[in-house]
């Protein structure tokens, strides 16, 4: 757990002065932030801007998880990496950029694939989880691990010219499975490699994720629990949707849960936990 900071240093006061004078934020908000840890699952198009703004704002600890390495085709949207980081682990490259921006943030890179074997142990060490992954099995895995560990999940996704954001498992609201009890048919899932994506769309959604994480971490609270924020970049239109409550019948957060430990999510979804090759040959 993070050491409790009793007061801000003079350097903190200088660095964060523009936030400290916000009545919604203040010194207490900054102290709360410095005592909060966030696990960023995926250091791609969403995770890059998210990690950037969490670190800039002075989050206490950020875990940066990604199994992948930086490729040229990532750079149009994964803006923490550079041409010189091609071939490096994304987690390491993102950590390097984050430390350059704010060396007072504790920054832990994890160059690994989140799996049913390691997810609980990792997530238990963090206060808030941000899902910036790119595939269906990982989204169910992260959700279940957050429900089983009691952590709020700030989840965003993006494809082509559209984005979606919801805060799950937060203040009695629904989880991902409450909304989507069954996974979609694998042939209907389009990933960024196949469907394309305009880089600034995950940029906007990742910044939004950072905003909601910061509101939770500072103590203001998120306004996106039980809400779906939909973004259409073509029309520059946002829409806020009121979602269902937590479902009594939910397999993981309901009254008689059948998912009481993590399962095989690739099998459950019929697809692989990477956006590289889309379907498992079962």
């Amino acid at each position, binding site marked *: 757990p993070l050491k409790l900071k009793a007061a801000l240093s003079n350097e903190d006061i200088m660095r964060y002065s523009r936030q400290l004078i916000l009545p919604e934020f203040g010194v207490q908000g900054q102290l709360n932030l410095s005592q909060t840890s966030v696990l960023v699952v*995926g250091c*791609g*198009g*969403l*995770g890059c801007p998210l990690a950037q703004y969490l670190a800039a704002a002075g989050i206490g600890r950020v875990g940066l998880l990604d199994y992948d390495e930086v490729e040229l085709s990532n750079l149009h949207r994964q803006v923490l990496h550079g041409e010189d980081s091609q071939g490096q682990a994304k987690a390491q490259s993102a950590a390097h950029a984050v430390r350059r921006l704010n060396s007072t943030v504790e920054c832990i890179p994890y160059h690994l694939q989140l799996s049913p074997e390691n997810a609980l142990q990792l997530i238990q060490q963090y206060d808030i989880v941000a899902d*910036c*992954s*790119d*595939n*269906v099995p990982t*989204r169910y895995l992260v959700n279940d691990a957050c429900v089983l560990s009691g952590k709020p999940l700030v989840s*965003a*996704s*993006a*494809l*082509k010219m*559209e*984005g*979606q954001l919801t805060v799950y498992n937060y203040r009695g609201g629904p989880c991902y499975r409450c*909304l*989507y*009890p*069954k*996974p*979609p*048919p694998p*042939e*209907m*899932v*389009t*990933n*960024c490699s196949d*469907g394309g*994506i305009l880089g600034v769309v*995950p940029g906007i959604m990742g910044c939004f994720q950072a905003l909601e994480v910061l509101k939770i971490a500072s103590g203001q609270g998120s306004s996106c629990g039980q809400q*779906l924020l*939909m973004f*259409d970049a073509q029309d520059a239109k946002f*829409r*806020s*949707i*009121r*979602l*269902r409550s937590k479902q009594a019948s939910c397999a993981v957060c309901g009254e008689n849960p059948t998912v009481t430990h993590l399962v095989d999510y690739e099998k459950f979804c019929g697809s692989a936990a990477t*956006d590289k090759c889309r379907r498992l040959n079962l």
Partner: protein
Amino acid sequence: MAAPIAIHLEFGGGAELLFGSVKEHHVTLPNQSAPWDMKQLLVWIRGNMLKERPELFVQGDTVRPGILVLINDADWELMGELEYELQDKDNVVFISTLHGG
């Protein structure tokens, strides 16, 4: 006899690809003896709008997993799902969940 009603349909998140890539549709549901509900709307969409591979939109008598249905900017679960009775000028959105990042 229920009078014909005009509703606004929207498809997004990729679901529009099943409808000629057109995101917004204004449709008029014809007269029928009982009020239109969502269950009948799905049958009507399947019969009148879906050109091919209807199983990618409807499965059984409901939408396939991974499509969220919104009625007037609220999750249809809050509105009665398949039993919701459509009103003139209702806005119904079918949105595919996105997973990319």
